[in-house]
């Protein structure tokens, strides 16, 4: 079963490559580099150390912001899901703020937090926090009274109900929130690096465009999708491995 899934993955990738290749037969490499040319450029960039360094810069921004935003979103979500007054007061504010697209905030965050790493991490934080928050709130609010009553009558204090019932029941929602937010974090970081950075994968693509180095741009695209795919699979695998009994999907 697992092996068959692997074969399907590989096949769909081959189809994509074939389509790409066939287009390069009619479109000149100045506009669309072939897979071979892209691979060649990529290998050069890996050998020079440029690509690994770029990937590292972007990944550390994404992972830091994603982790911080996710943890804060989950913690706040538990509170909002279980404390009615907090939900009534904060949810309208959150409903407004979460529709401000992160890209529009890039310049503002540069003014507020400087051109360094902080502004990028805050941007990822902003992107991630609402997604995990909304998911966690829904999960925490859906814990059934019966489960809480069972725990209470077994001797659990209010605090123990939260740590031993509410949080475990909410784990699948938190994990889903983290997974969805990861995709958004990739989009946000590339936008930020294209607009206001001197390093990272977004900056690399943007500067390649300035010099009309389309092959370098394609290396960027391929690298980005690989980074996203691998990170998502790692997150999925780890949550399966360590949180498998919490009914994660």
């Amino acid at each position: 079963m697992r092996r068959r899934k692997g074969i399907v993955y590989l096949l769909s990738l081959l189809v994509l490559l074939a389509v790409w290749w066939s287009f390069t037969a009619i479109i000149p490499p100045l506009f669309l580099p072939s897979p071979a040319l892209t691979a060649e450029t990529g290998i050069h960039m890996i050998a020079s150390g440029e690509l690994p360094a770029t990937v590292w810069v972007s990944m550390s921004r994404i992972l830091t912001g994603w982790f911080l935003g996710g943890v804060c979103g989950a913690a706040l979500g538990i509170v909002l899901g279980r404390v009615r007054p907090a939900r009534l007061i904060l949810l309208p504010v959150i409903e407004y703020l979460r529709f401000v697209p992160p890209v529009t905030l890039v310049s503002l965050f540069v003014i507020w937090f400087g051109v360094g790493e902080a502004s990028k991490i805050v941007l990822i934080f902003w992107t991630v926090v609402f997604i995990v928050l909304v998911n966690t709130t829904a999960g925490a609010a859906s814990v059934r009274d019966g489960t809480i009553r069972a725990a209470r009558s077994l001797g659990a204090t209010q605090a123990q109900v939260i740590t031993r019932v509410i949080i475990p029941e909410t784990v699948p929602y938190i994990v889903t929130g983290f997974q969805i937010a990861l995709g958004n974090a990739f989009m946000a970081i590339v936008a930020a690096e294209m607009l206001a950075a001197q390093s990272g994968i977004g900056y690399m693509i943007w500067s390649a465009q300035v010099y009309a180095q389309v092959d370098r741009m394609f290396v960027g695209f391929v690298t980005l999708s690989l980074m996203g795919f691998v990170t998502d699979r790692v997150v999925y695998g780890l949550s399966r491995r360590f949180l498998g009994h919490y009914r994660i999907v």
Partner: protein
Amino acid sequence: MSSVELRNVCQVFVDPRTGRSTVALDNISFAIGAEETVALLGPSGCGKSTILNVIAGFLNPSSGEVRLDGKKITKPGPDRGVVFQEHFLFHWLTVEANVAFALKLRGDPRANYLPQAHDFIRRVGLKGFEHHYPDELSGGMRQRVSIARVLINNPAILLMDEPFAALDAQTRLMMQEWLLRLWEEQRMSMLFITHDVDEAILLADRIFVMGVRPGRIISEIDVRLGRPRGRDILTSPEFMAIKSKCLNLIAEQSAKVFEHA
């Protein structure tokens, strides 16, 4: 010595939108003795579960009080073991961890809670299933786990809210006989809520038949059937006599509900 005592318990629910109030329980008083099983029998909506929720401490009565061994009840606690119609097990924990849950809350060390959990798992006949998850068990097995989960607290009384109602008829009878055997071993007090007349007679020493609107106890029936009991008494003349008495009382109440519906 009586373990649980209700004194003039009234429960009034007020609809927050319409402001209309409903009297769910009207002046309920009774006591359940040590080792005694009392069944609350009545049509749905008569307030059976409300009585259980008040004793469990999930609800505070509008007036009157509940005492457990003389002490007033104000909140849920491990001295009363509650078993619901749905099992409400912790699905992310194994059978072993579910049964040990109460002891782990108190911070018991593993060396203490593990042998105790295994002992109770054996007593409810689930030896070998310690490391299974609730999702992997049948309905009857899940209910036995939820009973073991409360028995480990050595509660003064077991409060059972239609625990076998969701099981199929064959499994239900097996579970009833199993509970009778468990009682012979543990001698716990029980309040058993049901709308199944056979179940009430088979398990209880006394049956309180409840009436509707407002919820109150309209009749108390002594079940003078010897113990240990088994399925054979289900067809005995004494059983039949009690059954017809119960059915008549319930029919009156159901007719009342039917007319108003």
